[in-house]
């Protein structure tokens, strides 16, 4: 067998017990690995009424079926747990090197259960696994922690995953970081690790991931690499400019949210675009494991240098906060990496705070002298720090924009779906992406079905972004295909160039399986329905498949998409029907039977 290692590491923190168990290959056939299998094991093992920050919640850190192989972009792993932000299945994935090295150490997945009685970290050196004291790094930022624990381990090849102070402080918008600045960012997964008193996980693996059909793989790999190279986005656009190249195109389309989604076009956006960043700030590219795209950036700013920033980060600390100061954006991003925070949710919460101030909900005396207003870059950076350390009003903001705005009686100013902050696309001007935001299993998220690809970028084909025609079908297919890509441990960006058949060829060559395209896509549909069923069990219903009032009722006020609205009420019934769900958004018995669930 190739691809899968076939072994899971389970750590009971309460008892200090470390054990291994075989990977259930019958389940893996149906759910692959990564997001799929970890999600299935999570829903089987964790009762739906468990408090996300209690010892009864579990964390499944899982590599994909192809993670650590020579498949392109195969560096990803996922953190699956119950989200403390909104109670849904959190499945936050990340790139870098750590995930591949977990497989080299001999594990498809690490499961953390219970709660340690003191701060600890987990040290994995192939089959030598130890729970070690972490008192000396508790309270330290991600960079200092990584540096200290690497030195202690005594082998520079060790890879470090850790939380920062934000996760320790149980911030509901905290991330799990790896390789310093790669983030399993969304849904507050850092707080779950913090609640278990786990500061870090070190992996040093000396093994390798087997390949079932090396000869077949040569041909399949050559084809995939060729497509990634020839494709204009993966071969040229992303490598040259990074993800922030989107700033101008999303802005020129008139769907670029400004000042907490109050406006949708920024006349000064080019000041913080990928083009400007490449010309003035880029030091080098910084690719993840086995990635020929290399969209990752390493940049300089006034007084420092570091990773990123990505498109979403540039937008959220930039235009969405009324700011065009690249140095401030870099600083805010760097702070998020070090404190272990999700840039999207942090920036969106600060922007919501700016609007709460604008509308008089927050009184000046609550701010302790730190400005919280659109356009104030120095204030914005300081609020990131205060959120990370839960200082003053920052403690309230660390719970995310929904709870923060709700505490002032204005939850409608939180730009969230299911309490998760919506990323950098105004859904009113892009119908399929709007439907995707409303139905995403983890809330306001663009990487559960990136409809921007066909609706704006024209990949794999151009769709009219204002039309409803066929959008329910597209959204379903994109959501299911994304679940497959996530569960293979590949990067979603590969899908700009690769299609379902390419992924089937890769997984078949590496694992020796024999999936047809339809069977592989059915794995994605199964994964999607498993997540949906969990969300229904924890109390969500069709009523939460919606967006903030501003994005449903009000038309866009400015720019090229002025006057456009999201026609969600027309799209949702079509989507439910497309999925084989009933009118209440519940999977029907026929749908589940067809999927073998």
């Amino acid at each position, binding site marked *: 067998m190739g691809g899968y290692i076939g072994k899971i590491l389970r750590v009971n923190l309460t008892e200090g017990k470390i054990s291994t168990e075989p990977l259930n290959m019958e389940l893996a056939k149906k759910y692959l690995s990564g997001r799929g299998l970890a999600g299935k094991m999570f829903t089987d093992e964790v009762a739906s009424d468990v408090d996300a920050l209690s010892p009864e919640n579990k964390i499944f850190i899982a590599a994909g079926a192809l993670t650590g192989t020579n498949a392109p972009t195969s560096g990803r792993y996922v953190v699956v747990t119950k989200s403390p932000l909104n109670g849904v299945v959190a499945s936050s994935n990340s790139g870098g090197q750590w995930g591949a090295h977990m497989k080299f150490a001999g594990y498809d997945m690490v499961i953390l259960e219970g709660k340690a009685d003191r701060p600890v970290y987990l040290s994995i050196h192939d089959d030598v696994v130890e729970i070690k004291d972490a008192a000396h790094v508790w309270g330290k930022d991600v960079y200092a922690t990584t540096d200290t624990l690497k030195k202690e381990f005594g082998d520079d090849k060790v890879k470090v995953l850790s939380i920062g102070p934000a996760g320790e402080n149980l911030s509901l918008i905290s991330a799990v970081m790896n390789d310093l600045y790669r983030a399993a960012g969304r849904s507050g997964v850092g707080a779950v690790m913090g609640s278990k008193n786990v500061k870090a996980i070190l992996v040093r693996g000396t093994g390798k991931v087997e390949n079932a059909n090396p000869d077949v793989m040569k041909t399949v790999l050559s084809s995939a690499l060729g497509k990634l190279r020839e494709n204009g*986005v993966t071969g040229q656009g992303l490598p040259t400019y990074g*993800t*922030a190249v989107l700033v101008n195109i999303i802005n020129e389309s008139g769907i670029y949210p400004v000042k907490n989604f109050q406006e949708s076009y920024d006349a000064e956006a080019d000041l913080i675009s990928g*083009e400007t960043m490449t010309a003035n700030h880029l030091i080098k590219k910084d690719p993840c494991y086995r990635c020929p795209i290399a969209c990752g950036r390493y940049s300089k700013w006034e007084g420092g240098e570091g990773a990123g920033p990505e498109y979403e980060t540039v937008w959220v600390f930039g235009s969405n906060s009324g700011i065009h100061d690249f140095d401030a954006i870099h600083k805010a991003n760097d702070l998020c990496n070090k404190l272990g925070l999700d840039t999207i949710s942090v920036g969106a919460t600060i922007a919501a705070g700016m609007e709460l101030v604008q509308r008089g909900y927050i009184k000046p005396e609550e701010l302790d002298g730190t400005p919280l207003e659109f356009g104030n870059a120095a204030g914005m950076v300081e609020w990131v720090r205060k959120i990370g350390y839960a200082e003053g009003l920052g403690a309230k903001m660390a719970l995310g924009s929904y709870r923060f705005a709700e505490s002032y009686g204005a939850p409608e100013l939180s730009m969230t779906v299911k309490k998760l902050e919506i990323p950098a696309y105004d859904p009113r001007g892009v119908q399929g992406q709007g439907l995707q935001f409303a139905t995403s299993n983890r809330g306001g998220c663009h*990487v559960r079905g990136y409809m921007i690809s066909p609706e704006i970028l024209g990949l794999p084909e151009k769709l009219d972004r204002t039309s409803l025609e066929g959008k329910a079908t597209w959204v379903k297919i994109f959501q299911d295909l994304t679940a497959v890509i996530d569960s293979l441990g590949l990067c*979603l*960006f590969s899908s700009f160039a690769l299609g379902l058949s390419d992924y089937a060829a890769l997984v078949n060559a590496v694992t020796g399986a024999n999936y047809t395209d339809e069977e592989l896509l059915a794995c994605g549909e199964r994964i999607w329905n498993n997540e949906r069923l969990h969300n229904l069990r924890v109390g969500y219903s069709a009523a939460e498949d919606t967006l903030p009032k501003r994005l449903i009722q009000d038309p866009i006020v400015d720019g090229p998409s002025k006057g456009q609205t999201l026609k969600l009420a027309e799209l949702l019934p079509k989507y439910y029907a497309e999925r084989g769900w009933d009118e209440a958004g519940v999977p029907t018995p026929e749908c589940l039977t067809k999927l073998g669930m």
Partner: protein
Amino acid sequence: MRVTVKLFATFRDGRFKVEERELPQGSNVLNILEPLNIKPDEVAICLVNGRDVNAQHFLNDGDTIALFPPVGGG
């Protein structure tokens, strides 16, 4: 008629970011591309006033044309 032309990503190399152009009535996007030495198949996205159009699209006075090579991200 007068239109605004905006170039992005590699289209800016050796050209410009934004310029105004005077064109005869009845001009289309191709009439913008030709003097810029940009081939139609190099253009991945052509927006006129924010709406995606093809190279044959006829222009009106006051239009803003935004031209992109293949780009993407997320």
